[in-house]
């Protein structure tokens, strides 16, 4: 299993190949389209992340000291971004998730998605991922 930092570096490398922002966005859109949609019953309010302009649902489970995340969104670029987040966080253990420093979003140039606002959900989403990890950690 790769570490969180290794995966982030890999993503950064991948994005470095793109010549301009439109290629990056096209890639995110493709990622978004390829991320399987939740079935209706997982798109429930208790899975909804507060603070997203688009709706984002996040689901998690915990087995063998490892957290599995699944997510969905009604906006496709958000879906692309969260598919990257899932790639980074899903399959890691709670401790590593909690201590992770997430820098790939800035480094691949998606900063505006990171503004400190309730309306833009990326920070809210990372926070929710960490809250899940904390919950699982304390369950152990």
């Amino acid at each position, binding site marked *: 299993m790769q570490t969180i930092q290794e995966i982030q570096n890999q993503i950064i490398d991948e994005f470095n190949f793109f010549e301009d*922002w*439109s290629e990056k*966005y*096209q890639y995110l*859109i493709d990622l978004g*389209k390829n991320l399987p949609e939740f079935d209706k019953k997982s798109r429930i309010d208790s899975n909804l992340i507060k603070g997203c*302009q*688009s*709706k984002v649902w996040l689901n998690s489970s915990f087995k063998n000291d490892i957290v599995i995340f699944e997510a969905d969104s*009604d*906006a*496709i*670029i*958000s879906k692309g971004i969260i598919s990257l987040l899932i790639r980074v966080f899903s399959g890691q253990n709670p401790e590593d998730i909690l201590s992770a420093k997430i820098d790939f979003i800035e480094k691949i140039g998606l900063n*505006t*998605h990171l503004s400190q606002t309730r*309306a833009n959900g990326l920070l809210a989403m990372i926070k929710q991922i960490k809250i899940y990890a904390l919950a699982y950690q304390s369950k152990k």
Partner: protein
Amino acid sequence: MLDVYKIRKDFPILGKKVNNTDLIYFDNAATSQTPNQVIDAISNYYKETNSNIHRGLHSLSADATNKYENSRSIIKNHFGAAYEHEIIFTSGTTHGINIISSGLEKSISSKDELIVSEMEHHSNIVPWQMLCEKTGSKLKVIPINDDGTLDMDEYKSLLTPKVKFVFINHVSNTLGIVNPIKEIIDLAHKNGSKVLVDGAQGAAHFKINLQELDVDYYVASAHKLCGPTGVGFLYGKSELLNSLPPYQGGGEMISNVTFDKTEYADLPHKFEAGTPNIAGVIGFSAAIDYMNSIGFNNIEVYEKELLDYATEKLKKIDSIKIYGDINNKISVISFNIGNHHPSDIGSILDQYGIAVRTGQHCTQPIMDHFNIPGTVRASFSFYNTKSEIDLFIDAVKKASKMLG
């Protein structure tokens, strides 16, 4: 006629680069940009006059007081109020509405009814919900038609003798639709009801005369009409404002304080507790002066031209749906393209340096009406140009194509 390229030189931010391209600012309904004339009025206040007002007798304080009160005159004159003291400075539209909603707590009872519309901004819904919760009164809602206009027949039938107040926006921030507020006010008055008009969007785009409208209360924010953040005004007819209890307690709003008994000051001070946003108020009147120097008639004509130009071009785009596409509206276009999420369109436009707003625009009931998660809203101001619109149309097409 208005010389837009000359005007643009007054707005330093319009020369800015965003994401390595020229900024195209089409988010004017959220907040307008600020000309040098206003920025300088604020800076000069701090450089030359800054002092607390009303209570001081030294020259600086007298100067600051005169500038502050002179701003009140400018705003009174521009909006056609009868008296200076009918203009209360607030921190914005939301604050103005809340002064009234909290002021009505004692005079509204569980037998009374209040009317809002389905197209109100949350700021003109939530305070009335809170008032209803406190008083047990009932909130009734004028529905909108599918073209976005108010259902006026429904309004008439909602106007029963129990209705004490009607709360309505002058112009919808989401749809741009201009409501027939004169008719709404006249009908309400015949029914013995009072009317508060949320002028957050109305005040910025055409000239209004409060006395001719015969409106009871009118509220607006400076930051929507080239003025600074943190300031706005509440207009109320003298006798109504006098009948309300004060909103906040503090310095300035009292004339006599002992622990036995406190007397409140007269209008407008009764509602201006504490040190006000002095620089903001002075900036506000500078903004009104600036817009008048351009001329509200010119602004109206030119913005209509931009609106028509953009609407026509947008309509040619595949699967576009414009909400509130009627004739009588300001330069605001809310739309969606196919099933694309508005935030996806907005994110891509941002990469082209184009600032539009996406989402619910604080009008969730409108979204519920159309059963959509939000819209892309482009709103133009008199400093925008047709060539910006061309670039915008182009970018919308590209975004739609990227999203596939």
